[in-house]
């Protein structure tokens, strides 16, 4: 059956996100809180035991600066464009595969509150885009999702996503979920 595989892209190599692995946005380092109204400075993956899996090769971090600029891995501001970030610099690669060669359409990526796909996360501003987009999308709720490009018939389809999150209030954020959906034929 057709399936999605989520992969964290690291500064060197990639790491398939397993069923029990955990992904989180942090301040400067793994475990650091993000200041209210600031965007994350690092992105990390750990296993179910809490072991940090990207200790040396970190997950690429794409931090929202303005509607058209990004800081990649703590670097200076860059204008989003055809190669900013590159596909390899996007923190998320989401692969869709099917045994048959299928065309994808209406793919979308968003964040919601964990219970209603059309409601933005609670106390979190979420921005995202597909590689080569020239601006960020405020992707809170499925109705505001990033529209991912249609792809022609193939058995494997990769979607490269950059994303950034900012708390708007103090405290851990539990009403926060990421989602992807597409149609194919």
């Amino acid at each position, binding site marked *: 059956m057709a399936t999605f595989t989520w992969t964290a892209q690291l500064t060197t190599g990639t790491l398939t996100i397993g069923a029990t692995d955990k992904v989180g946005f942090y301040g400067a380092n793994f475990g650091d809180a993000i200041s209210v109204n600031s965007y994350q400075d690092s992105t990390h993956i750990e296993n179910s035991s809490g072991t940090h899996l990207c200790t040396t090769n970190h997950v690429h971090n794409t931090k929202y600066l303005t509607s058209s600029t990004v800081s990649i891995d703590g670097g200076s501001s860059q204008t989003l464009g055809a190669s900013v970030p590159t596909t390899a610099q996007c923190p998320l690669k989401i692969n869709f595969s099917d045994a048959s060669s299928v065309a994808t359409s209406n793919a979308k990526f968003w964040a919601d509150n964990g219970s209603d796909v059309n409601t933005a996360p609670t106390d979190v501003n979420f921005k995202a885009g597909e590689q080569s987009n020239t601006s960020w999308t405020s992707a809170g709720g499925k109705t505001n999702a990033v529209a991912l490009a249609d792809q022609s018939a193939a058995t494997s389809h990769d979607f490269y996503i950059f994303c950034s999150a900012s708390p708007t209030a103090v405290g851990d954020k539990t009403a926060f979920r990421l*989602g992807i959906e597409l149609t194919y034929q």
Partner: protein
Amino acid sequence: MGKIITRWLASLSDGSVAIEGKKPFEKIPNELSPWQRLLLHLAKNNLEITGLRIQIEKEGEPVRTFNLPSKSPKQKWADLKPLIPVGFNYFRRVQRSMEPIEGDFGNLRLGNEYHFIEIHAIYDDFELVLIVDEDTGNESWSLVLPK
């Protein structure tokens, strides 16, 4: 739960019925999907789809069929004079999320994957969409989408 198979069945203008999973529209690894091959078959033979439905099979037996309005003048309920579609379409839909983890605040973990099969009856100003839960075969939704 027994194995569930969902498939589309397309009635064609030459009187034949194309069935997903049955020759010549079986699913073949690394080749065009059955629907893509059906589209080629229609173009090559100057045919059109006159009716489209979804069939649910459980443990080898068809247990449920979901029908769209048809172009056939002999369709069931023709006496009610339903609007006749100008075309049809089909998709499968898949969703997956990264979910919050109870008791582990701030982290996300892969959630379940959900699969749906959907067929569209296309009219001039709208589409009638029928979506069926492919994982259970039990639930369906009907939508009218403006064009």
